Protein backbone atom coordinates (compact mmCIF):
# COMPACT_ATOMS: atom_id res chain seq x y z
CA UNK A 1 0.00 0.00 0.00
CA UNK A 2 1.99 2.94 -1.25
CA UNK A 3 -0.95 5.29 -2.01
CA UNK A 4 0.30 8.62 -3.33
CA UNK A 5 -0.68 11.73 -1.37
CA UNK A 6 -3.82 13.44 -2.63
CA UNK A 7 -4.57 17.14 -2.96
CA UNK A 8 -3.56 19.01 0.18
CA UNK A 9 -6.25 19.27 2.80
CA UNK A 10 -8.21 16.19 1.77
CA UNK A 11 -8.26 12.51 2.65
CA UNK A 12 -8.65 11.63 -1.00
CA UNK A 13 -5.16 10.32 -1.59
CA UNK A 14 -5.46 7.29 0.66
CA UNK A 15 -5.49 3.99 -1.14
CA UNK A 16 -8.73 2.15 -0.69
CA UNK A 17 -8.83 -1.17 1.10
CA UNK A 18 -12.61 -1.45 0.88
CA UNK A 19 -14.20 -4.55 -0.58
CA UNK A 20 -15.58 -4.13 -4.10
CA UNK A 21 -19.37 -4.37 -4.12
CA UNK A 22 -22.13 -4.54 -6.68
CA UNK A 23 -23.22 -0.89 -7.24
CA UNK A 24 -26.86 -1.18 -6.14
CA UNK A 25 -25.86 -2.99 -2.97
CA UNK A 26 -23.09 -0.46 -2.31
CA UNK A 27 -25.49 2.44 -2.76
CA UNK A 28 -28.11 1.09 -0.35
CA UNK A 29 -25.37 0.10 2.09
CA UNK A 30 -24.04 3.66 2.12
CA UNK A 31 -27.46 5.08 3.01
CA UNK A 32 -27.96 2.38 5.65
CA UNK A 33 -24.56 3.06 7.19
CA UNK A 34 -25.33 6.80 7.40
CA UNK A 35 -28.44 6.01 9.43
CA UNK A 36 -26.78 3.33 11.56
CA UNK A 37 -23.73 5.34 12.58
CA UNK A 38 -25.72 8.50 13.34
CA UNK A 39 -28.24 6.45 15.34
CA UNK A 40 -25.34 5.23 17.47
CA UNK A 41 -23.97 8.74 17.95
CA UNK A 42 -27.38 10.03 19.08
CA UNK A 43 -27.72 7.05 21.41
CA UNK A 44 -24.58 8.28 23.17
CA UNK A 45 -26.62 11.26 24.39
CA UNK A 46 -29.00 9.07 26.38
CA UNK A 47 -28.74 10.07 30.06
CA UNK A 48 -26.28 12.84 29.11
CA UNK A 49 -28.42 15.47 27.32
CA UNK A 50 -28.82 18.96 28.84
CA UNK A 51 -32.37 18.16 29.97
CA UNK A 52 -34.53 15.05 30.15
CA UNK A 53 -36.83 16.33 27.39
CA UNK A 54 -33.87 16.59 25.02
CA UNK A 55 -32.60 13.21 26.16
CA UNK A 56 -35.84 11.70 24.89
CA UNK A 57 -35.91 13.81 21.72
CA UNK A 58 -32.40 12.76 20.65
CA UNK A 59 -33.11 9.13 21.52
CA UNK A 60 -36.31 9.27 19.42
CA UNK A 61 -34.42 10.66 16.47
CA UNK A 62 -31.76 7.99 16.92
CA UNK A 63 -34.42 5.29 16.96
CA UNK A 64 -36.01 6.67 13.78
CA UNK A 65 -32.59 6.41 12.14
CA UNK A 66 -32.05 2.92 13.51
CA UNK A 67 -35.34 1.86 11.93
CA UNK A 68 -34.19 3.26 8.60
CA UNK A 69 -30.85 1.48 9.00
CA UNK A 70 -32.54 -1.86 9.65
CA UNK A 71 -34.66 -1.58 6.49
CA UNK A 72 -31.74 -0.43 4.35
CA UNK A 73 -29.19 -2.94 5.64
CA UNK A 74 -31.65 -5.82 5.31
CA UNK A 75 -32.32 -4.74 1.74
CA UNK A 76 -28.59 -4.35 1.01
CA UNK A 77 -28.10 -7.92 2.20
CA UNK A 78 -30.87 -9.12 -0.12
CA UNK A 79 -29.34 -7.28 -3.07
CA UNK A 80 -25.98 -8.85 -2.31
CA UNK A 81 -27.52 -12.32 -2.17
CA UNK A 82 -24.71 -13.75 -0.07
CA UNK A 83 -26.84 -14.50 2.98
CA UNK A 84 -25.75 -11.49 5.07
CA UNK A 85 -28.57 -10.08 7.20
CA UNK A 86 -28.79 -6.71 8.97
CA UNK A 87 -26.80 -7.98 11.96
CA UNK A 88 -24.01 -9.41 9.82
CA UNK A 89 -23.71 -6.10 8.02
CA UNK A 90 -23.93 -3.93 11.14
CA UNK A 91 -21.70 -5.96 13.44
CA UNK A 92 -19.32 -7.98 11.33
CA UNK A 93 -17.82 -5.45 8.93
CA UNK A 94 -14.66 -3.50 9.64
CA UNK A 95 -14.07 0.20 9.28
CA UNK A 96 -12.96 0.21 5.64
CA UNK A 97 -16.15 -1.59 4.62
CA UNK A 98 -18.43 1.04 6.13
CA UNK A 99 -19.75 3.38 3.41
CA UNK A 100 -21.20 6.18 5.54
CA UNK A 101 -20.42 9.85 5.05
CA UNK A 102 -17.82 11.12 7.49
CA UNK A 103 -20.18 13.73 8.94
CA UNK A 104 -22.29 11.13 10.76
CA UNK A 105 -19.30 9.58 12.54
CA UNK A 106 -17.95 12.87 13.89
CA UNK A 107 -17.97 13.01 17.70
CA UNK A 108 -20.98 14.52 19.48
CA UNK A 109 -18.97 17.35 21.03
CA UNK A 110 -21.18 19.63 23.12
CA UNK A 111 -24.90 19.99 22.41
CA UNK A 112 -24.27 22.71 19.82
CA UNK A 113 -21.92 20.48 17.81
CA UNK A 114 -24.56 17.77 17.77
CA UNK A 115 -27.21 20.27 16.65
CA UNK A 116 -24.91 21.56 13.89
CA UNK A 117 -24.40 17.99 12.69
CA UNK A 118 -28.15 17.30 12.90
CA UNK A 119 -28.98 20.42 10.91
CA UNK A 120 -26.47 19.70 8.14
CA UNK A 121 -27.23 16.01 7.85
CA UNK A 122 -31.01 16.04 8.27
CA UNK A 123 -31.32 18.79 5.63
CA UNK A 124 -29.23 16.60 3.29
CA UNK A 125 -31.20 13.45 4.11
CA UNK A 126 -34.48 15.31 3.62
CA UNK A 127 -33.60 16.37 0.06
CA UNK A 128 -32.20 12.92 -0.69
CA UNK A 129 -35.26 10.99 0.51
CA UNK A 130 -37.57 13.49 -1.15
CA UNK A 131 -36.03 12.51 -4.50
CA UNK A 132 -35.61 8.83 -3.68
CA UNK A 133 -39.37 8.56 -3.33
CA UNK A 134 -39.39 8.59 -7.15
CA UNK A 135 -36.68 5.94 -7.44
CA UNK A 136 -37.19 3.16 -9.97
CA UNK A 137 -36.20 0.87 -7.10
CA UNK A 138 -39.56 0.22 -5.44
CA UNK A 139 -38.08 -0.87 -2.09
CA UNK A 140 -35.86 2.19 -1.84
CA UNK A 141 -38.80 4.40 -2.83
CA UNK A 142 -40.94 2.85 -0.09
CA UNK A 143 -38.26 3.28 2.58
CA UNK A 144 -37.79 6.92 1.54
CA UNK A 145 -41.53 7.63 1.54
CA UNK A 146 -41.83 6.39 5.12
CA UNK A 147 -38.62 7.96 6.38
CA UNK A 148 -39.13 11.44 4.98
CA UNK A 149 -41.80 12.19 7.59
CA UNK A 150 -39.32 11.27 10.30
CA UNK A 151 -36.56 13.30 8.73
CA UNK A 152 -38.84 16.34 8.36
CA UNK A 153 -39.11 16.28 12.15
CA UNK A 154 -35.37 15.80 12.64
CA UNK A 155 -34.73 18.82 10.43
CA UNK A 156 -37.27 20.90 12.29
CA UNK A 157 -35.80 19.90 15.66
CA UNK A 158 -32.30 20.93 14.57
CA UNK A 159 -33.64 24.16 13.05
CA UNK A 160 -35.47 25.18 16.22
CA UNK A 161 -32.36 24.65 18.33
CA UNK A 162 -30.06 26.37 15.84
CA UNK A 163 -32.29 29.46 15.96
CA UNK A 164 -32.43 29.48 19.74
CA UNK A 165 -28.76 28.82 20.36
CA UNK A 166 -27.55 31.13 17.59
CA UNK A 167 -29.85 33.99 18.49
CA UNK A 168 -29.80 33.29 22.24
CA UNK A 169 -27.20 34.36 24.78
CA UNK A 170 -23.60 35.35 24.01
CA UNK A 171 -22.47 31.98 25.28
CA UNK A 172 -25.01 29.96 23.27
CA UNK A 173 -24.17 31.97 20.14
CA UNK A 174 -20.45 31.36 20.62
CA UNK A 175 -21.00 27.64 21.09
CA UNK A 176 -23.36 27.30 18.12
CA UNK A 177 -20.91 29.09 15.85
CA UNK A 178 -18.12 26.84 17.15
CA UNK A 179 -20.34 23.81 16.48
CA UNK A 180 -20.82 24.87 12.87
CA UNK A 181 -17.07 25.37 12.47
CA UNK A 182 -16.44 21.82 13.67
CA UNK A 183 -19.02 20.21 11.39
CA UNK A 184 -18.78 22.24 8.17
CA UNK A 185 -15.54 20.59 6.98
CA UNK A 186 -17.68 17.49 6.46
CA UNK A 187 -20.50 19.18 4.54
CA UNK A 188 -18.97 19.19 1.04
CA UNK A 189 -18.62 15.41 1.05
CA UNK A 190 -22.40 15.03 1.08
CA UNK A 191 -22.52 16.49 -2.44
CA UNK A 192 -19.42 14.80 -3.85
CA UNK A 193 -19.90 12.75 -6.99
CA UNK A 194 -19.69 9.14 -5.97
CA UNK A 195 -18.71 6.43 -8.48
CA UNK A 196 -21.38 4.09 -7.12
CA UNK A 197 -24.38 6.35 -7.63
CA UNK A 198 -23.09 7.83 -10.91
CA UNK A 199 -23.80 4.57 -12.74
CA UNK A 200 -27.24 4.22 -11.15
CA UNK A 201 -28.57 7.73 -11.72
CA UNK A 202 -29.50 7.27 -15.42
CA UNK A 203 -31.71 4.31 -14.46
CA UNK A 204 -33.28 6.40 -11.67
CA UNK A 205 -32.02 3.88 -9.09
CA UNK A 206 -30.06 6.55 -7.22
CA UNK A 207 -29.99 10.30 -6.70
CA UNK A 208 -27.09 12.39 -7.96
CA UNK A 209 -25.57 13.88 -4.76
CA UNK A 210 -24.55 17.04 -6.59
CA UNK A 211 -28.21 17.76 -7.28
CA UNK A 212 -28.82 18.16 -3.53
CA UNK A 213 -26.42 21.03 -2.92
CA UNK A 214 -28.72 23.78 -4.15
CA UNK A 215 -31.89 22.79 -2.27
CA UNK A 216 -29.77 22.02 0.83
CA UNK A 217 -28.23 25.48 0.70
CA UNK A 218 -31.62 27.09 0.07
CA UNK A 219 -32.85 25.54 3.33
CA UNK A 220 -29.80 25.88 5.57
CA UNK A 221 -28.56 29.38 4.68
CA UNK A 222 -31.71 31.25 5.78
CA UNK A 223 -31.73 29.29 9.05
CA UNK A 224 -28.16 30.37 9.80
CA UNK A 225 -28.91 33.95 8.79
CA UNK A 226 -31.99 34.13 11.01
CA UNK A 227 -29.94 32.60 13.83
CA UNK A 228 -27.35 35.40 13.34
CA UNK A 229 -24.69 32.78 12.55
CA UNK A 230 -21.94 32.99 9.93
CA UNK A 231 -21.56 30.28 7.29
CA UNK A 232 -18.18 28.66 7.98
CA UNK A 233 -15.57 28.55 5.25
CA UNK A 234 -13.50 25.52 6.18
CA UNK A 235 -9.93 25.23 4.90
CA UNK A 236 -10.12 21.45 5.10
CA UNK A 237 -12.70 19.06 3.65
CA UNK A 238 -13.07 15.46 4.82
CA UNK A 239 -13.90 13.17 1.91
CA UNK A 240 -14.16 9.56 0.88
CA UNK A 241 -16.62 7.92 3.29
CA UNK A 242 -18.54 6.31 0.45
CA UNK A 243 -15.29 4.60 -0.57
CA UNK A 244 -14.57 3.39 2.95
CA UNK A 245 -12.22 6.22 3.91
CA UNK A 246 -13.05 7.42 7.42
CA UNK A 247 -11.88 9.74 10.15
CA UNK A 248 -10.27 8.38 13.27
CA UNK A 249 -13.66 8.62 15.02
CA UNK A 250 -15.39 5.70 13.28
CA UNK A 251 -13.14 3.00 14.70
CA UNK A 252 -14.16 3.97 18.24
CA UNK A 253 -17.85 3.95 17.29
CA UNK A 254 -17.54 0.46 15.81
CA UNK A 255 -15.56 -0.86 18.76
CA UNK A 256 -18.40 0.08 21.09
CA UNK A 257 -21.21 -0.85 18.71
CA UNK A 258 -19.81 -4.22 17.63
CA UNK A 259 -18.10 -5.44 20.78
CA UNK A 260 -21.01 -7.32 22.31
CA UNK A 261 -22.01 -9.10 19.11
CA UNK A 262 -18.44 -10.12 18.37
CA UNK A 263 -17.71 -11.26 21.92
CA UNK A 264 -20.96 -13.21 22.18
CA UNK A 265 -22.04 -14.17 18.64
CA UNK A 266 -25.80 -14.57 18.37
CA UNK A 267 -26.41 -13.13 21.85
CA UNK A 268 -30.08 -12.43 22.62
CA UNK A 269 -31.88 -10.53 25.35
Amino acid at each position, binding site marked *: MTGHPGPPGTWDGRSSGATALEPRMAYVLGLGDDALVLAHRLGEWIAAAP*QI*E*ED*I*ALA*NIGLDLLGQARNLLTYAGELEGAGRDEDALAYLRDERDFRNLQIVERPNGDFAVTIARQLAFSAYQYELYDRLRDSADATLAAVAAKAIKEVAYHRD*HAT*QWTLRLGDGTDESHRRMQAGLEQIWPYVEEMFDPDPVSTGLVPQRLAVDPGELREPWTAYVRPVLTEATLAVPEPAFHGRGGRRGVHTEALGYVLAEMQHLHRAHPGARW
Partner: protein
Amino acid sequence: MNPEPLWEVFVRSRRGLSHIHVGSLHAPDAEMAVRNARDVYTRRQEGVSIWVVPAGAITASSPDEKDSFFDPAGDKVYRHPTFYDIPDEVRHL
Protein backbone atom coordinates in the same frame (compact mmCIF):
# COMPACT_ATOMS: atom_id res chain seq x y z
CA MET B 1 -31.51 23.45 38.40
CA ASN B 2 -33.58 24.02 35.32
CA PRO B 3 -34.11 27.69 34.44
CA GLU B 4 -36.61 26.92 31.68
CA PRO B 5 -40.30 27.47 32.39
CA LEU B 6 -42.64 24.62 33.19
CA TRP B 7 -45.46 23.68 30.79
CA GLU B 8 -48.53 21.54 31.37
CA VAL B 9 -49.27 19.16 28.51
CA PHE B 10 -52.68 18.07 27.25
CA VAL B 11 -53.08 15.37 24.60
CA ARG B 12 -56.14 14.37 22.59
CA SER B 13 -55.85 10.67 21.92
CA ARG B 14 -58.23 10.61 18.97
CA ARG B 15 -60.82 12.65 17.15
CA GLY B 16 -63.97 13.31 19.11
CA LEU B 17 -62.37 12.98 22.52
CA SER B 18 -61.19 15.81 24.77
CA HIS B 19 -57.63 16.85 25.44
CA ILE B 20 -56.51 15.23 28.69
CA HIS B 21 -53.74 16.36 30.99
CA VAL B 22 -50.84 13.93 30.65
CA GLY B 23 -48.03 15.64 32.57
CA SER B 24 -45.60 18.51 32.46
CA LEU B 25 -42.20 19.37 31.04
CA HIS B 26 -39.59 22.12 30.74
CA ALA B 27 -39.03 24.10 27.54
CA PRO B 28 -37.66 27.54 26.68
CA ASP B 29 -40.83 28.63 24.83
CA ALA B 30 -44.20 27.39 23.58
CA GLU B 31 -42.94 26.10 20.21
CA MET B 32 -40.27 23.98 21.85
CA ALA B 33 -42.77 22.84 24.49
CA VAL B 34 -45.04 21.40 21.77
CA ARG B 35 -42.07 19.59 20.25
CA ASN B 36 -40.88 18.25 23.58
CA ALA B 37 -44.43 17.12 24.34
CA ARG B 38 -44.52 15.29 21.01
CA ASP B 39 -41.37 13.41 21.96
CA VAL B 40 -42.12 12.80 25.61
CA TYR B 41 -45.84 12.02 25.51
CA THR B 42 -46.85 10.87 22.00
CA ARG B 43 -44.04 8.65 20.77
CA ARG B 44 -46.16 5.53 21.27
CA GLN B 45 -49.05 6.84 19.16
CA GLU B 46 -50.88 8.30 22.15
CA GLY B 47 -52.21 11.36 20.38
CA VAL B 48 -53.44 13.33 17.39
CA SER B 49 -53.32 16.80 18.99
CA ILE B 50 -51.26 18.52 21.67
CA TRP B 51 -51.89 21.60 23.82
CA VAL B 52 -49.28 23.17 26.06
CA VAL B 53 -50.09 25.74 28.72
CA PRO B 54 -47.63 27.67 30.90
CA ALA B 55 -47.94 26.05 34.32
CA GLY B 56 -48.13 29.53 35.86
CA ALA B 57 -51.27 30.32 33.85
CA ILE B 58 -53.27 27.64 35.64
CA THR B 59 -55.37 28.70 38.61
CA ALA B 60 -56.02 25.76 40.89
CA SER B 61 -58.51 25.20 43.68
CA SER B 62 -56.93 25.34 47.11
CA PRO B 63 -56.57 22.25 49.33
CA ASP B 64 -57.92 24.49 52.17
CA GLU B 65 -61.21 24.79 50.30
CA LYS B 66 -61.61 21.04 49.90
CA ASP B 67 -64.40 20.73 52.46
CA SER B 68 -66.56 23.58 51.12
CA PHE B 69 -65.86 22.76 47.49
CA PHE B 70 -66.33 19.02 47.34
CA ASP B 71 -67.90 17.54 50.44
CA PRO B 72 -71.43 18.93 49.82
CA ALA B 73 -71.71 16.76 46.69
CA GLY B 74 -71.18 13.62 48.73
CA ASP B 75 -74.79 13.02 49.81
CA LYS B 76 -76.67 14.24 46.71
CA VAL B 77 -77.44 10.88 45.14
CA TYR B 78 -80.30 12.47 43.19
CA ARG B 79 -77.72 14.24 41.04
CA HIS B 80 -76.73 10.92 39.50
CA PRO B 81 -78.94 9.53 36.73
CA THR B 82 -79.35 6.23 38.53
CA PHE B 83 -83.13 6.48 38.83
CA TYR B 84 -83.78 6.13 35.10
CA ASP B 85 -83.92 3.03 32.93
CA ILE B 86 -81.60 3.74 30.01
CA PRO B 87 -82.73 2.16 26.73
CA ASP B 88 -80.11 -0.15 25.23
CA GLU B 89 -80.02 1.92 22.02
CA VAL B 90 -78.68 4.95 23.87
CA ARG B 91 -74.94 4.73 23.92
CA HIS B 92 -72.23 6.84 25.56
CA LEU B 93 -74.46 8.05 28.39
